[in-house]
């Protein structure tokens, strides 16, 4: 007897229906503004305020006193700030957020909106350096037509370390500007922090970047700045990610459908097969290169290594193994003398050619991806 199944079935038959849920939710929501109004119009209690002021003064005195005592008695430097993630938000219209760990590696990339989801679909940016990631995002924005002449790239860097935050921002501004110029893209890159953000940041004692994120969250959710400053960078980032969650999910699911359809395209499949084949070949050639001992003296000196199966006993065996990887009419077959330097040089040339070939196929595959993204982008625009 499957009790769980029976229970689930019974629960389904009594649980509120979708219609009932909608009704209840809407009734509850109607009661919410009244609740917030009630809160806002609370009478000002002078006695309570006076006591709060006294308590605050006592706290400040205590904290200040204890802090001064600790600092002066230890004679140490100021405590080191805990390292936290840094967020880099790039906003072209596709809006995406890159999360960096404390050594500057990209640990996550998330879309903030539907266009961001289109842009990032199928991209593997995690693990890249920040420069590479930004370069890739700007390049994709350009290719997909989001970034156009006269357009703007807005950059927000938010971290708990103000100096680090400014340093990353300055570096990125220069790099993105350089990329735009190199590719003759008539667009500008600006840091998303104006005078107002700066003064608010100073007032609330947070970094400029964090204040820029706070402003975005407040604008979208109606939360007051006073409350939002209490949120961590992680929380702010999560909230921004969730704002257009539905649109992002819809875009990802539609693009996944296009991706499925692509699996039936013979040309696309053949490109995939080719790239896998060449990639495998590159791996195998690299392995042969690793096992090939170029210096004969070294080979004699290290007998243990020579006996090891992993190292080729002679170059002829390596050549034989290499040629066996290729088809009989392949132009890459090695027919020269059996010397390690000349065979090694041949292998290097072959690897170079193969990598060029892989890049070319990769570009063609990328075009397929661009096409499905463009297709979805246009259909979404029409339906909007």
């Amino acid at each position: 007897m499957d009790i769980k199944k029976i229970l689930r079935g019974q629960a389904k038959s009594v649980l509120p229906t979708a219609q009932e849920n909608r009704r209840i939710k809407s009734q509850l929501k109607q009661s919410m503004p009244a609740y917030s109004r009630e809160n806002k119009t609370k009478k000002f209690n002078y006695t309570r305020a006076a006591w709060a002021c006294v308590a605050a003064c006592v706290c400040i005195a205590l904290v200040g006193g204890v802090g001064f005592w600790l600092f002066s008695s230890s004679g140490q430097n100021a405590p080191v700030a805990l390292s936290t993630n840094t967020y880099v938000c790039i906003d072209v219209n596709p809006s995406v957020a890159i999360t960096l760990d404390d050594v500057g590696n990209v640990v996550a990339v998330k879309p903030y909106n539907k266009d961001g989801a289109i842009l990032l679909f199928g991209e593997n940016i995690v693990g890249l350096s920040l420069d590479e990631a930004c370069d890739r995002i700007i390049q994709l924005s350009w290719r997909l037509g989001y970034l156009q002449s006269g357009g703007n790239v807005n950059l927000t860097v938010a971290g708990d370390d103000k100096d680090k935050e400014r340093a990353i921002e300055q570096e990125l501004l220069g790099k993105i500007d350089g990329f735009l110029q190199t590719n003759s893209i008539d667009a500008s890159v600006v840091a998303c922090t104006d005078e107002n953000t700066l003064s608010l940041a100073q007032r609330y004692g947070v970094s400029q970047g964090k204040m820029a994120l706070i402003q975005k969250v407040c604008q979208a959710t109606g939360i007051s700045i006073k409350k939002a400053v209490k949120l961590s960078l992680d929380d702010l980032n999560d909230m921004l990610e969730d704002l257009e969650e539905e649109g992002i999910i819809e875009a990802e699911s539609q693009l996944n459908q296009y991706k499925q359809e692509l699996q039936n395209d013979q040309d696309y499949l053949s490109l995939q097969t080719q790239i896998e084949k060449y990639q495998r070949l590159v791996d195998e050639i690299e392995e042969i290169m690793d096992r090939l001992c170029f210096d004969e003296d070294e080979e004699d000196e290290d007998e243990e290594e020579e006996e090891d199966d992993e190292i080729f006993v002679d170059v002829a065996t390596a050549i034989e193994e290499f040629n066996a990887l290729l088809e009989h009419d392949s132009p890459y077959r090695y027919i020269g003398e059996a010397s390690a330097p000349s065979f090694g040089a041949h292998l290097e040339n072959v690897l170079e050619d193969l990598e060029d070939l892989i890049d070319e196929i990769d570009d063609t595959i990328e075009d397929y991806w661009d096409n499905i993204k463009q297709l979805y982008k246009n259909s979404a625009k029409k339906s909007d």
Partner: protein
Amino acid sequence: MKNEKLEKKVKEFALGNSKAFDYIYDVSHKVVFMVAFGILNNRESALDVMQETYRAMIKAIGTYNSTNFMAWLTTIARNLAYNSYNKNKRVVLSDFGDQKYDRQITDERDEGDLFGVAKSLLDEESYLILVLVVVEGYKRREISKMLSMPISTVTYKYKSALKIIEEKLTKEGEKYGY
């Protein structure tokens, strides 16, 4: 994890982001309803209590200061359901006197109603664990965090709950010859 996201949304809601309410309602209403239904054994009354629970939650969200929102919410639901039950009892079931809720409810129940059987046989915690796993699909490790209880206890209570219901059903089957 589902519970972590719920706690985040609750935090946002408490700060004034009313959009977070949809998520909170969507992931919690089934459990709230089943808790109320388990006590009242009446769908309409359970729906009313569910609505009242969220109304109370909205009013009190400023005072919520924990990481066990679901436990907090189901406590509100349970209290409101018992209040509602007492109110109705005075009107309709005044003869039952001081007997325990569970006993009274069992007497009125249709034996085919497994949640009713569960509610009458299990303690509050076991019933809640059963509802959280079966109705809302929470993982036992999530429930353990939610109810501040070791995973082993959650597993034990969950398994025992299933066993108790199964035994009861088997006995009933034998009694009626099926």
